[in-house]
């Protein structure tokens, strides 16, 4: 008995240890970037153009670029992603075609981000002649975020009880009316959570924008969707590897801004999810 008890203790300690080994490094990464990045934080850092070969001044154009790319991604990815989810949850039957769609989504989720970059270069930049532009980058990022949005939205739609649809139909509503006025509003919080998670991925990715939109340095903000733009993740890559003699403070500051942006969105998604889960009455 005591030997078994001992084995259980050892086993549980091992499990707890592995959990600690997972969590502690995350805390170290976040903690060290926050601590070292804080000193760079100032209103000027967030709102001014870079100066002296990016070695001074702020990172305003990179922040604006990332926000523009997120907006562009959202404009394309939300209708297509939510539409796909509606099809899968409300219309599709369980047949060969539906299984193929699911397989395609799993594969889209698994394609390496740099391959998305190549694809965006081949299709949008070169073949469709959008050039290295916000348009090309947004389209590339949108296709990359689709699987995240589709699976979250489908789950949200499926969690709406069938009775809601039945009642809508029994009152004389068409299928689409039922979806638009009953099912979609009920599933909205879940869908928004999925959209935030997708956009957060788009905001943090570097490889897909390398050849489709990202600019090393631009003296002014982009003026149309056909302009290049700077972006936070690419800017961090550039100043930490491509520019010799870059002050560490600016590097950590940039990393911190990117981290805060992504973690805020993450936190927002979590809060939204748990808030609506508690409020749900069915």
């Amino acid at each position, binding site marked *: 008995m005591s030997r078994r008890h001992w084995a259980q203790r050892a086993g*549980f300690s091992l499990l707890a240890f592995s959990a600690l080994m997972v969590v502690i490094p995350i805390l170290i990464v976040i903690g060290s970037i926050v601590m070292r990045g804080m000193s760079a934080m100032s209103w000027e850092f967030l709102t001014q153009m870079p100066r002296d070969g990016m070695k001074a001044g702020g990172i305003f154009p990179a922040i604006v670029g990332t926000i523009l790319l997120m907006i562009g991604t959202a404009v394309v990815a939300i209708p297509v992603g939510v539409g796909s989810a509606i099809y899968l949850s409300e219309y599709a039957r369980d047949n060969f075609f539906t299984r193929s769609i699911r397989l395609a989504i799993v594969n889209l989720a698994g394609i390496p981000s740099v391959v998305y970059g190549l694809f965006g270069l081949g299709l949008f930049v070169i073949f469709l002649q959008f050039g290295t532009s916000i348009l090309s980058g947004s389209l590339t990022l949108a296709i990359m975020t*689709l699987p995240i949005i589709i699976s979250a939205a489908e789950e949200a739609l499926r969690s709406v009880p069938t009775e809601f649809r039945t009642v809508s139909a029994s009152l004389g509503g068409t299928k689409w009316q039922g979806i638009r006025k009953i099912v979609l509003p009920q599933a909205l919080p879940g869908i928004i959570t999925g959209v935030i998670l997708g956009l957060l991925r788009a905001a943090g990715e570097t490889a897909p924008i390398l050849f489709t939109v990202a600019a090393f340095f631009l003296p002014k903000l982009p003026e149309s969707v056909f302009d290049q733009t700077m972006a936070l993740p690419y800017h961090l890559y550039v100043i930490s590897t491509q520019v010799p003699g870059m002050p560490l403070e600016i590097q950590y500051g940039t990393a911190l801004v990117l*981290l805060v942006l992504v973690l805020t969105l993450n936190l927002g998604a979590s809060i939204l999810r748990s808030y609506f889960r508690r409020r749900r009455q069915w």
Partner: protein
Amino acid sequence: MLDTKSTDQPYRKWVEFAIESLIRVIGFSSIGFVFLIFLFLMREGLTALLDVSWGNLLGTRWYPILDIYGVLPLLLGSILVTLIAILIALPLGVGTAVFVREVAPGWAREILKPMIEVMAGIPSVVLGFFGMTLLAPLFLKYLGLATGLTAFTGSVILAYMALPTIISVAEDALDAVPKSYRDASLAMGATQWQTIWRVVIPAARSGILTAIMLGLGRAIGETMLVMMVTGNAGRMPLTLDSLFRPIRTMTATIAAEMGEVAQGSSHYHVLFALGIILFLVTFIINLAAASAIFRKRRRGGLR
């Protein structure tokens, strides 16, 4: 709320039909995108086979400046970094999943779950930056290496990139093991640990296998952090100590060189050919993982 007047039936029917068709088209778009991605990789990459001889492509040296495009060192580099990363991530990931799902008290679960979500959200370029500026110097100092930017440094950080995937899929797998299995084992006098080790984990093994595969797919396709921390030296990793030397992966090569090549050059086409290899490898891995999931569902078995 609902429009019950229904005076204009034909109009409404037409709207219904139009919307349904649109949603159907959008629903199938994912297949279209996968197809488009493959098509455009092939369009730009297949030419590499015409431009560059097989002997050259299958060579052991990567010197694009001299038109030497041996992809083997890059392929092996990717494989080495990925395998070591999974070797690190697998025990940690499965251990954490088991801890969260089976052992941890409520408060620990409440802390761990969001932490793992946060980890999934950290951009790879931030992890790469952390690895470059803080971890690599540490490894350099304490492991007695010539440089801190090695395959091993890359693998360690890559493991943390793959961990969220492995943990969440493994958790789902453990979730799918029926409570009756655990009850039966405990009723026969087994301890909780014996139940976990001999009943729950074996019953969840197909799901854990899926977790490994998805983790592999995630790791082999990772680009930025690998490019920033592995040192990018294109040599064949054939001996054991190459783990502690700089190495170069396929993803990093594409990302680092595509910006500088002339469009339409052999180098350009070979980089797309690397993209085809990556696409096919992750496609096969995900196909295998997905079929494992589908099989379980069809059998209806565990749930």
